[in-house]
C-alpha cells in the first residue's frame, strides 16, 4: 500500500482540486492520497464520487487533511 502525500495549502482554487484529481490517476487499489488542505473541498466530492473514489475529511485541527481511496467492491 502506497501513500501519495500532497501539500495543497497556499494554493488558489481550483489548483488543490486539480492536484488531487491528477494524483488519483496513478492510484492502485490499496493506495491512498493524503492531502493537506486550507479548507474543506466541498466541490471536489461529486467528482471523486463520479470517478469511483471514497474520501475522509479531518477538519479538527488547523491543517485540514483529506484522504482519498478507490472504492472497493
Amino acid at each position, binding site marked *: 500500500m502506497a501513500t501519495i502525500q500532497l501539500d495543497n*495549502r*497556499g*494554493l*488558489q*482554487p*481550483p*489548483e488543490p*482540486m*486539480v*492536484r*488531487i*484529481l*491528477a*494524483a*488519483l*490517476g496513478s492510484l492502485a487499489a490499496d493506495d491512498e492520497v493524503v492531502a493537506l488542505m*486550507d*479548507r*474543506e473541498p*466541498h*466541490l*471536489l*466530492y*461529486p*467528482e471523486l*464520487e*463520479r470517478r469511483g473514489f471514497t*474520501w*475522509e*475529511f*479531518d*477538519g479538527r485541527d488547523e491543517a485540514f487533511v483529506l484522504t482519498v481511496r478507490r472504492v472497493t467492491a
Partner: protein
Amino acid sequence: MTLAAPGRGPALALVAPFFLAAPLGLALAGLILAFSNGDTLLAINAPRTVALTHAAVIGWLTMGIFGAVYQLGPAVLGGRLVSSRLARVHFFVHATVVPAFVWTFWQWDVRLMGYAASGLVLSFILFLINAFPAIGTLRRGALPARYLGASLVMLAVTAGFGITWAGTLQHLWFPVTMGRLAGHAHLGLLGWLGLTLMGVAYQLAPMFNVVQRKRPVAGGPILALTVTAALGGGLVLMADPGPWVRLAVAAAMAAGPGAWGIEMLRLMLARSRRTLDVQGRATFVSLGFLVVTICLGLLAAIGKPVSPGHEPTRLLLGYGIAGVSGWAGIMLIGNSYKILPFLVWYHRYRQLAGIRPVPVVADIYSEGAARAVLAVHTTGTIVAIAGALLGDLNILRAGGLMLTLGAALHMVSLAHIVLAPHAPAPRRIGPGEVATR
C-alpha cells in the same frame, strides 16, 4: 473524522443570470444620477434619489449578492439549496419587480409603490428559503457563515420596515421622518449589504490572495458589534434623536466596519501572492472608500455646522455614493471576477482535470478588461462624490454617466466569461502539474 456528504455545485445557468443582470441595476442607477435635477442636492428623500438608491442597492448589489450566496453557500460553506427551481423563479421575480419598484419611486406613485414593494418582499422570501440552508449556518460555525446568517436576518428586518414605510406613504398612518428613513437605510446598508460583504471578504480575500501566516483575530466581536450597531442604531435613528445621539450612533456604526477594514488590511498585507490581480486591487480600493465613507458619515451625523454650503443633503449624498458605489460596490465587482470564472471553470473543466491540460481561472477572464472596469467605476465614483460635495450638478451627472459606462463594460466582460470559449493559455495545468500563477 467525518465522512462528508457529497457537495453539489449550483448550476452555472442558475447563478450566472444574477451576476449578468446585476450590472444593469448599476447602469440604471448611473443613468438616474445622470438625470439628477436640483432636488437631488436639496433633499436626500427626493423621488429620484430614492429611485437611484434602490436601483443601486436592490437592483445591483443585492442582485449580485444573491448570485454569490447561491454559489458560495454550497461551494465553500457546505450548505445546500432547498430547490434550484425556486432560485430560478426567484431570479425571474426579482428581475421583474426591481425596475417596476424603481419606476414607482421615480414617478412617486405611492399606490403602485405598494404593489411593487409587495413583489419585492416576495422576492426576498423566495431568496431566504434557499439562502439559510445554502450557507449551512446550523451545521457549521464558520465566520463567513455567521456573518451571512446575521445579514439574512437583517435583510428581512430591512424589508419589513421598507414595506411599512411604503404602506404609510400610501395610507398615511404616520409620517416617514428623516430619522425613520435613516433607520431603514442603515439597517439595509450596514446590516444587509455591509455584513454580507464583510463575511464574504473573510472567505475570499485570504483564499484568492493566499494568506496563510495570519488569521482573522476579531471576526466574532466585529460581527457582534456591527449587528448591535446596525439594529440598535437603526432603531434609535427612527426616533429622530438630536445631534449628539446621532453622532454616537454613527460612531457605533462605523466601529465594526472600521475594525474589519483594519483586519482586512492586516490579512492582505500578509498575503503570499504578491502580484495583485483585479480582486486584490479592488479589495484595497474598496478599503480606501470605506475610510472616505466613515469620515463623510461622521460629518453627516454632525449635520449643518460642518455641511458644505450648510446643505446636509450634499454630505449625505456623497456619503451614500462612497459607501454604496465605493466600499460595497467595488468589493462586489472585484469578487465577481473570482466567483464567476471559478463557477465556469467548475462546470466546463472539472471532469477533464487530472486527465487533460485544463485552463486556470485566470485564463477564463480578461484581467485587462476587469481592470478597465475597476478604473472606470472608481473614477465615476470619485467624480460623483466630488459633484455631490461641491454641489455641482454637472459633475454629479458626469459621475453618473461614467458609472453607467463602467456598468456596461462590466456586463460585457462578465458575459464574455460565461459565453466565450476559453483556450487554455500556455501555462495551463496538465496532469500532475501545478500552475503557479
